[in-house]
């Protein structure tokens, strides 16, 4: 037992050391300097990045959650597999391709990027909404009906609270994915922190690479962390264990 703990702590500390070494190395080589010397540009890129993600994610939630609810209604049940297969197929299309294909539809620019990100993040949210509602025990719904609950009462009091965990996990997946995909928005001229990463690649400039890549990484990790916390607040205590579908 003691030895196991020791090994775990050694590994943990070595990883911390590795991360620390990376940052010391990067700072020593002034790789973060652009963030300060070109602070104005950095803030603009950061804001563009966040706006891209927030707008597209909100739109995706507004479409995907109601759509997921709709296809799980009895009337549409039979059509559910069609939507699920489309959703699964859609996820095999590379994010870069979705961005690129939107150019021919909407031209280059910010709106195109928002639309592409929106399309791409519908899938995980839709899938998790459907999965969350589908995994609710049939007996529970039967009991609810037998107690005289109306369909909308069953939806809002039983189905949504008990699938909240899964739905929020889908939203989290989508947002984290979006932060990464938004870094590719540069290629269709929509700005964001990806601008510096691509500049770094094109110019072999480590400073631009690190100054772009690290903030994007931190943004993703932070969003993931905050949304996990949100799950804890929003999901009713009793439903936390039943709703677990995806980590």
């Amino acid at each position, binding site marked *: 037992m003691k030895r196991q703990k020791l090994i775990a702590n050694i590994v943990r500390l070595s990883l911390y050391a590795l991360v620390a070494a990376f940052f010391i190395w990067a700072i020593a080589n002034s790789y973060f300097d652009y963030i300060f010397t070109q602070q104005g540009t950095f803030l603009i890129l950061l804001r563009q990045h966040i706006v891209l993600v927030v707008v597209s994610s909100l739109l995706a939630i507004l479409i995907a959650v109601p759509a997921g609810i709709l296809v799980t209604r009895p009337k549409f049940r039979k059509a559910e597999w069609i939507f699920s297969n489309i959703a699964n197929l859609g996820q095999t299309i590379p994010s870069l391709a979705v961005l690129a294909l939107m150019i021919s539809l909407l031209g280059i620019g910010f709106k195109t990027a928002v639309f592409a990100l929106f399309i791409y993040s519908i899938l995980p949210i839709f899938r998790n909404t459907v999965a969350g509602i589908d995994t609710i025990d049939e007996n529970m719904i039967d*009991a609810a009906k037998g107690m*005289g609950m109306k369909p909308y009462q069953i939806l809002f009091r039983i189905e949504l609270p008990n699938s909240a965990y899964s739905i929020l996990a889908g939203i989290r997946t989508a947002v984290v994915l979006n932060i990464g995909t938004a870094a590719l928005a540069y290629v269709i001229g929509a700005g964001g922190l990806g601008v510096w990463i691509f500049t770094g690649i094109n110019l072999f400039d480590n400073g631009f690479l690190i100054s772009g890549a690290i903030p994007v990484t931190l943004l993703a990790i932070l969003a993931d962390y905050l949304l996990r916390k949100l799950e804890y607040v929003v999901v009713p205590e009793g439903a936390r264990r039943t709703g677990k579908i995806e980590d």
Partner: protein
Amino acid sequence: MISFKHVTKAYNEENIAVNDVDFTVEQGKIVVLLGPSGCGKTTLLRMVNRLESITDGEIIINGENSMDLDAIELRRKIGYVIQSNGLFPNMTIEENVMLVPDLLGWSKKEKRERFTYLMKLSGLDPEEYGKRFPYQLSGGQQQRIGVVRALAADPPVMLMDEPFGALDPIIREKIQDEFLQIQREVKKTILFVSHDIDEAIKMADKIVLLRDGEIMQFDTPSEMLAHPKNEFVSQFFGKDRAIKSLSLHTVKDLQGIIGLGEVDDSIQDTKTINVHQDLRNTLSMLMNQEADQVIVTDDEGERIGSITIDLVQKYLHFEIKGKLSVSQEG
């Protein structure tokens, strides 16, 4: 009161789930729908609160045709308990139990009082359990809550679909006893589905024995055991149905017909049983030879006599075998 009037349910020409079923559950009584799996008992139950449609015939609930009522209104007036309790994991126990009163728009105070009353009735501490979530309760406790929830809005009629089926035998028996205790107080009209013969004999005022959607016999448990109407009924209850029927009689019944034995004070190794104990348990106690003498006591604990295997056998002969042999001859 629930009356089934020539009720039929057919999915198509060949597939008939319930065929011309006709019987009545009297006010305040428990009728158990019994039969092998696939006999249509659950379908029949679910037709009452219209979770299943009716093809032909009608179901009258307290004077009203179920089809004339709004399905939602109807269901709120009927308590419904299912095997896997169907508690909602996202709600606390109190929220679960008070859901129907909440839907009916009861005030906070009314709900609080009702919850406290019901929990006390079923021997659970309302303070301790109210704020907990279903997953924090044992299977037996969850099932008790399932029953309490069905009673919440004080519905005159209850439907119970194998409510204790998922519990282990010891807990099941305990909860059955508790439920009968509650029923003596609340006197609901209950339709109860079971596939367990012992449970049916214990819980039922009357049993409906079903096969392939048709009623084989509708009778009190003792009549059904003593006078099975046909080969299916007698086979369903098995060769030991005489012994099974003993659980419907108590030591008190035996005392009334043939009297108890004398207490022999010289025997040291004794055990006592209550006069209201059923004869099946008494017999198994006697057969296990747990003591040299078994003494019967009344409710005050006074010794009123002793009992032996011979006496039980005699009683069986007079009271049950007698009837059985008559039916066989007839």
